[in-house]
Structure formats: structure tokens, C-alpha cells
């Protein structure tokens, strides 16, 4: 089930909230938790009931393993148990997510020697696997306490974070489930949670889906082998950059808001990443719970920065390549991870050479922002394109190698100047000649408006700062608002704004397609 759907908003959410508090406030805490697990499983099964068994089996397996890992015993046998547990989780992920990719590559190199049916990826398996590995590792280290089975089930299945994160850590979730005031109906939590959810829904259905109307056809054209011209390529890359941010951060906001309605805090996942002035900073602001996991469970176990500068850079690259592969089974994700690994190495080298002096001046920060943003935009291209051809089409287009094209009407309007441009190789096939249904003025205004949005507006958690909207991964990262009057409070004005935003969200869940045939 999707958060941005009618059945979720108007049936699933109200019913699960109502029953949870109806049971919980009468003192039946375990029944309330069981209810929450039940609706979470229903939420998961809505998409594909066949994989429900898989989810349940994996919960039982990991819980049992966690218990034996945290009990006293021979350290070597516990170590093997841990390796076994991680291997089982990874092979499950490997089978569902990477088998097709692996077979395709073998077949590509050695000819068609293997045959395998297309495997459908169970929803959220990447997120769930990470959470469980972290749990097993911590159980092995003795950092987990005796966890209640129901609480463990809820930790894995809790629907707000089940399919797309934030990637929660048992250490921050389990204690919350044990709190007694969880079951008290609290208007405060509902007000805060609903507001965050409404903002997140707006980011998804209005902003992300709005700009996707340009990004999708642009990448589709590039992937089908068409060489995009300068403006098409830039608009496509920028549109996707914005779409992904609003989509994913909107989803995270919705998750945080929904969890809050049940009295649970989730970790912060996005913190205005496109305001970053360097790549290291970017990774402290983008998909923060993923970078935290990669740091704690890949980079540091590899040795982190403790084994000299060369090993440190190798570790960084390995961690980023794996992070790329985690996003999806494809070479394009490896390219993306590799690029970011490279960016991070350059960033660290730059820091050790100049000690971050440039960042103190205004010009330095502007330069840093520009370089960072361009690098991030360029790296999203292979992340989104399904083929190498698509990536090349957009990258070449962005540097002008596929030519520049203007509107046919411009040739008439510009007269002599137009013909001079034509002589230089500028064509007049239309600014967005290869992008079906795109209008330059519409796409242009969307891009401009959304850039302003990500660069100059405060983010959700800044607005909600006084109400501790989420766990901070790095202390103090939820910055103060520059304009304090903007801070959210339960006032009449905020209530009406949120109400209008919610109504607008609901009305934006669906669209009427239109077709304007050329005419006067």
C-alpha cells in the first residue's frame, strides 16, 4: 500500500490508529502492539501476499539467532553463528535482488549458459535486511538487551518505515515500544505527526510528481537511444535531481509523521542535502540513515580511517560501491556509487591539503556549493538512466556535444540573427523536440520554483524543531530557523494552512490528462 493513496489515507490509517488507541488506552498493551503488527503485515501483504511468509520466516529466524548470539557461550561458536546469520540474510537479499543481474552478466560474458525466471523483488527487502544485520551484529557484541518478541516483530514490520525507511536501529526503536505512555491518546502527537505527514505528502504528490512529468519522458527518450540536446539534457538531469529529493524526502517525512501519530519517533533521514557546500556534507544530509549504516557496518569494520590514508580511501570507495549496489542490481548504480566514492576521496584530499579554509569566505562557499551540486546532478544521471546509452545521451547533451536546439518559431522571430545561429550549428527543431509533451515555459518555471524551494526554504524538521520531530544522527543538525516566526505552533493560522495543504494533497492524488490539439 502506498502512503499517497486513497485507501491508505482514508481507511487504513484512521482504522489502525483508532483501534490501536481504543485497545491500548484500556490497558491491553500487548494486544495493541499485536494489532499494530497485524496492520503492518496487512500493509505489506496488500502489495503481494505471497511474500508475507518470507517476511515472517525471516523475523523468526533472526529473533532466534539474536537470542542465541546474546547468550553466553563459546566466542568462536558465536562468531560462526553471526557469520551464518549474516550470510543467510545476505543470500536472501542476493537471491531476490541480484540473481537476475548476476545471471545476465554471466550470460553476457560466456554466452547464454544460464537460465533463470525473472524474480520479483520483495518490497523493502533491502531496508529490512540492513536492519536485521545491524541487529545481529549488535547482539553478537552484547549490545542488545533481552528483547521482547512482540517488540522485535514490531521493530521489523512497523509500517511507516517498512518499505522505504528511514533505516531504523533497534537501539532507538526498542526502548520506545516499552514506554507506557505510548498507549495514551495524545492530541499533541497527532497534531505534530499529522502536520509532518501533510508536508511530506505535499512534497510527494505535488512537487515530486509535478516535476516527474518532465524527468520521466526525458530519460525515456535518452534510454531509447535519442541524443538529447543541450537544454533537454540539463532540464532532464535537474528535473530528476529535484524529483528524487522531493519523492524520497517527502516519503521520509510521511514516515516520520505517521510514526509520530503512534507516539514513535523515527530518525531524521534528509536535512536539506542540496544546500551542502561539499560532498562530505552532502552525505551527512542525504539519506542519513543509510550513510549511518554504511559507516557503522561497512566502513568502520573495514578499518575506517585507522589504517592509513591509502586504506582509508580504498575503504571509502568499497563502501560507496556497495552503497551503490544496494540501491539496485545494475552497473549504473555501481557507476553512481563509484562516482560518489571518487568525489569523497577528492573532498578528503582537498581538506587535508587546504584544511577547509576556502569554506570560510562567501565566495568559497558559493564555489563549493556549485561544484558539489554539479557533481551530484551529474551522478544522478547514471542512477536514473536504465542504459549506458541513456547516460551518455544526457551527459553529452549537458556539455553541448549533442547540439543546441531552439523553438522553430524563434527562427522567424530572430530573422538574420537566427540564420547566423543556424550557421553556427544551432538547430530550430524545438527546445524540447525529443521530450514528449514537455513545454519549455512550464518545465522552466517548475525547475526554477523547486530550486528556490530546496535552496532557500527551511526544511520540515526546522519548522517543527520545537517538537523534536525526529532523532538526530549528528547532534545539533536540525538547524535553528532564521525567521523564528515561521516555527510551527498549534495556532489557528497553522491549522488552516495545514488543512488547506491537506485538501490540496488529497485533490492532487489523481490527475485528469488533457490533450490540446494544435490550433489557433
Amino acid at each position, binding site marked *: 500500500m502506498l502512503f499517497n493513496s486513497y485507501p491508505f489515507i482514508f481507511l487504513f490509517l484512521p482504522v489502525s490508529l483508532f483501534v490501536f488507541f481504543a485497545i491500548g488506552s484500556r490497558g491491553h498493551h500487548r494486544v495493541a502492539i499485536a494489532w499494530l503488527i497485524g496492520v503492518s503485515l496487512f500493509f505489506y501483504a496488500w502489495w503481494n501476499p505471497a511474500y508475507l511468509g518470507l517476511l515472517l520466516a525471516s523475523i523468526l529466524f533472526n529473533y532466534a539467532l539474536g537470542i542465541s548470539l546474546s547468550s553466553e557461550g563459546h566466542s568462536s561458536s558465536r562468531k560462526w553463528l553471526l557469520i551464518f546469520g549474516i550470510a543467510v540474510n545476505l543470500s536472501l537479499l542476493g537471491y531476490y535482488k541480484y540473481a537476475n543481474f548476476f545471471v545476465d552478466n554471466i550470460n553476457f560474458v560466456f554466452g547464454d549458459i544460464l537460465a533463470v525466471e525473472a524474480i520479483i523483488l520483495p518490497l523493502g527487502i533491502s531496508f529490512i535486511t540492513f536492519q536485521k544485520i545491524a541487529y545481529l551484529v549488535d547482539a553478537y557484541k552484547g549490545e542488545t538487551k533481552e528483547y521482547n518478541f512482540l517488540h522485535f516483530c514490531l521493530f521489523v514490520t512497523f509500517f511507516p518505515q517498512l518499505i522505504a525507511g528511514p533505516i531504523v536501529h533497534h537501539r532507538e526503536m526498542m526502548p520506545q515500544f516499552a514506554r507506557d505512555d505510548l498507549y495514551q491518546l495524545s*492530541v499533541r502527537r497527532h497534531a505534530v505527526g499529522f502536520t509532518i505527514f501533510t508536508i511530506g505528502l505535499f512534497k510527494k504528490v505535488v512537487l515530486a510528481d509535478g516535476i516527474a512529468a518532465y524527468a520521466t519522458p526525458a530519460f525515456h527518450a535518452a534510454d531509447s537511444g535519442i541524443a538529447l540536446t543541450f537544454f533537454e539534457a540539463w532540464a532532464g538531469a535537474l528535473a530528476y535531481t529535484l524529483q528524487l529529493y522531493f519523492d524520497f524526502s517527502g516519503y521520509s517525512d510521511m514516515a516520520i509523521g505517521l510514526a509520530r501519530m503512534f507516539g514513535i519517533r523515527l530518525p531524521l533521514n534528509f536535512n536539506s542535502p542540496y544546500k551542502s557546500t561539499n560532498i562530505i556534507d552532502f552525505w551527512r544530509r542525504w539519506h542519513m540513515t543509510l550513510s549511518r549504516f554504511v559507516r557503522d557496518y561497512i566502513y568502520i569494520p573495514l578499518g575506517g580511517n585507522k589504517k592509513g590514508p591509502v586504506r582509508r580511501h580504498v575503504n571509502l570507495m568499497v563502501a560507496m560501491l556497495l552503497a551503490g549496489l544496494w540501491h539496485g542490481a545494475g552497473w549504473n548504480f555501481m557507476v553512481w556509487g563509484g562516482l560518489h566514492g571518487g568525489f569523497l576521496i577528492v573532498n578528503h584530499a582537498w581538506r587535508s591539503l587546504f584544511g577547509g579554509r576556502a569554506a570560510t569566505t562567501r565566495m568559497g562557499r558559493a564555489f563549493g556549493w556549485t561544484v558539489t551540486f554539479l557533481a551530484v546532478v551529474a551522478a544522478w544521471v547514471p542512477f536514473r538512466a536504465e542504459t549506458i546509452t541513456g547516460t551518455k545521451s544526457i551527459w553529452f547533451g549537458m556539455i553541448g556535444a549533442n547540439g543546441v536546439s531552439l523553438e522553430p518559431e524563434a527562427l522567424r522571430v530572430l530573422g538574420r540573427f537566427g540564420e547566423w545561429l543556424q550557421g553556427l550549428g544551432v538547430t530550430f527543431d524545438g527546445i524540447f523536440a525529443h521530450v514528449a509533451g514537455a513545454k519549455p515555459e512550464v518545465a522552466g518555471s517548475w525547475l526554477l520554483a523547486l530550486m528556490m524551494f530546496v535552496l532557500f526554504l527551511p526544511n520540515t524538521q526546522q519548522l517543527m524543531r520545537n517538537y523534536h520531530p525526529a532523532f538526530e544522527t549528528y547532534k545539533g543538525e536540525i538547524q535553528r530557523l532564521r525567521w523564528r516566526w515561521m516555527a510551527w505552533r498549534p495556532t489557528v493560522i*497553522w491549522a488552516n494552512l495545514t488543512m488547506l495543504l491537506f485538501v490540496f494533497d488529497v485533490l492532487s492524488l489523481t490527475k485528469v490528462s488533457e490533450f490540446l*490539439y494544435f490550433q*489557433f
Partner: protein
Amino acid sequence: MNKPAAKPNSSLLSRLRSAGPATISSRLLGKGPVTPSERQFAAYLDTIGIGAVVLLTIIILMNYLVDPYSIFGSPSWEGINANKPELFKHLRLTKAYAVKTRKPDALVIGSSRTEHGLDPEHPALFPEFNTYNLALNGATIYENLRYFQHANAERRLKKVVLAIDFFQFNAYRPNAPDFTEKRLSSDIHGDKRKIAIITDMLETLASVDATTASLKTLFQQANRDNVILPRGQVEQPDKEAIVMMHGGRHEAALYSELNYVTHLFFPRPHKKFDFVSEDGSTNTFDYFRRILEEAHRSKIEFYMLISPAHARQWELTASTGLWDKWETWKREIVRLNEEIAQERRRPPFPLWDFSGFNTYTMEALPVLGDKETMMRWFWESSHYRKELGDLVLDRVLNYSDPNRPIANDFGVLLTSENVEKHLASIREAHQRYRQSHREEVKEIDDLVKKYQPH
């Protein structure tokens, strides 16, 4: 969370009553105590809950009553919602529902030429039949097929006039963005099926698009650029003035021709013209075949015609290098018509060709910059006026009106016997046209040279 939770059963009214004037003013100004009370949070949630329900109800009610896409059959009030300017952008939605409610037993189908030019109330079609103009602007032949099947599933059709255009058979032209299979009452094999209208209902009652459409309808009652008549024909009462404002007939012709070069003949992104797509997934003659097969199966009185267009259009066809393909297209249409009839052991359907160079299509075009002279038969080189459409229907349906005689050279009944001779005569007429209209020919050739994709 040390404050006591508000009692779940405390009503909104009692909360409002207990909130003194001080609380209310501080709430308005947002300068409440440092930690707002539970009561304030409760009031916050009440405002959102009640406000959202009220606002959504008002919006849905408004969209239902204004009915901007004309699908609920809501009453029509003069000066409020009688004129629906938003319809024109959503014809595929509107016409699909019009078929469901009107259940026509006779149709006129085709592309925008048909939509503007062929009158469903022509005396040979109406009132004997409940005729509807189900033509769709810019339609691919696939869209024509599906809407024809939709109407035939809603009610067995008795009489159909199908007007076809060359560009409709380009396999690289996608269906319009507002085309969707989901709302059609027949599957691709012509079998009736139940359809879910929930998506269309949600879209047209509770969406931002529908709401803006309603508001535009309310505030743009004077906008009569495109009026959709009750029987589906599109009328453009202000078109004459608009065309003149935009630079006159000649300018309009050039604009339309430019659109043929950059969009209709060579649509983005492939910029190609072919009857079968490269990957073989689309074969437009196959869709045409399905129309004829269903017409035979349902024993419909079926007429076909190739639309007239101004002579400049045929010069454009030659100049873009599509002339041979255009001839192939006609041969194939003729062949399929006879082949399918033979398979079904029925006579082939009458197929009339109004294209080429004749009394009407050679009508003189006013010179560039002339913003006063109108044309009698055409809007520009692609779209003909209803006046010419009446003659087309007179010819096809064998109807004669003493007030409007038809020139003898208008309309040729095509069969496999005369098709080659007919094509040769159009070729000759084209050569003569090139001789006698050197200026116009050069103008079109220049336009093609400048804009044709390489």
C-alpha cells in the same frame, strides 16, 4: 508528555466554550504560552478535520454541479455553466461518456477534419438515426478503432461514416495523452466488458484539475473558442476573428503546414513515418482491418472516405517525400476493403476519395498579410469548413439538395479496378498545379527544407 491527555469524549463545543477570550486571541496571534496546552492541540486537530471535510464537500459538490467535462449530466444554467470551454482539452473523456449516456446508433468518426467538418445532423443521418460525431482531434487509427468498438458495445450501430487521413496511419504517432483503454466498454476483440469508472469519478470530482476546470468554466462563460455541440461536432464561432487576428488565412495555412512537418507527419521523438513500427509492435493497417471486420460482423451500413484537404496539403505531401507512401496507403486501403469483404462474403464498403486537385481543394488562398479575405471552403490547408463537409456527406450518402450542387470532379469511388488510373490522374494534376502555382510551391518547399528533421 506530562500534561494529561484531553478526554476523548470532550466535544468540540465544550472545548470552545471553556477556551476563554484570552486563549482565543493568543491563539490567533500565535503568541501562546511557551508550551501550548493540550486544548490548543485539540483545537488545531478539530480545525483541520472539520475544515477539510467541509472544504472537500464543497469542492466535490461544485465539480459535480458545474460538470466541466460534461459527464454527470448536471443541469445546464445559461451564463453559469452552459458553455464548457474546458471540454475541448478532454474530448476523449467527454465523448466516451457521451456515448454511454446517449447510446447513438449512427456515428461519424475520424480525426479533427471530421470533428469540425462533418455534421451529425446531416439530413441523411438525422433524425432517422441518433447520430453522434465521435471523431477525435489528432486521432490515430487505433483510437478510432477503440471508440468505434466502445460505441458498438454500448449499442449495436446501424450506420457509420468513417473519414480517414493519411497521417492517422503513422505507426510512430502515439495515442493522445488523454486516451485510456480503461473507460471503453469493449475490449480490443470487440467483446463487451464491464468497466470501472471509479478512476474517472475521482479524477473528475476530487482533483485539482477538475477544480480548476470548474472555476475556469464559471469564469470563462464568454469563451466560445471551441464549442462542443450536443452531438459531438466541434464548432468554433470565433475562429474567423481569431484566424484574422493571427495574420489571416495564409498565415494560418503556413502554421498548419509547419505542424504537419514537425508533428503530424514526423512526430517526436522518432521523427519517422511508417505504417508498421520498427519493432513490429504497431501495424496501423491491422487496426484498420479490425474496424472493417467488426463493421461486417455487426452488419453495419458502413461508408468510408478519404478527407478532402487543400491542394497545398498534397504539395506538402510531395515535398516531404511522402508522395509514394501516400499512394501505397490508398492502394492498401482499397485492397483491404475488398479482401475483407471477400472473406466475409459481403460486398465491399463504398470508399470515396476527396483528396487531390479539384474545384474545391484548388480554392485560391489569400496572399500573405491579407487579414480580411476569407475562404469559402477551408480554414487552412488541412481543415475544411462545414460547408464543404455537407457536400462530402451529400456525395457519400447519395443525398441531393437542390440548393447546393456538387461539382462533378469532387469525390471518386475507389475500387481495385480504377485505383491506378485515379492515382495517375492525381499525379498529372499535381504537375499542372506545380506549373500554375509556382510561388506557393516554392513557399512550401522552402518551409519543408527549413524545418524537416534530418
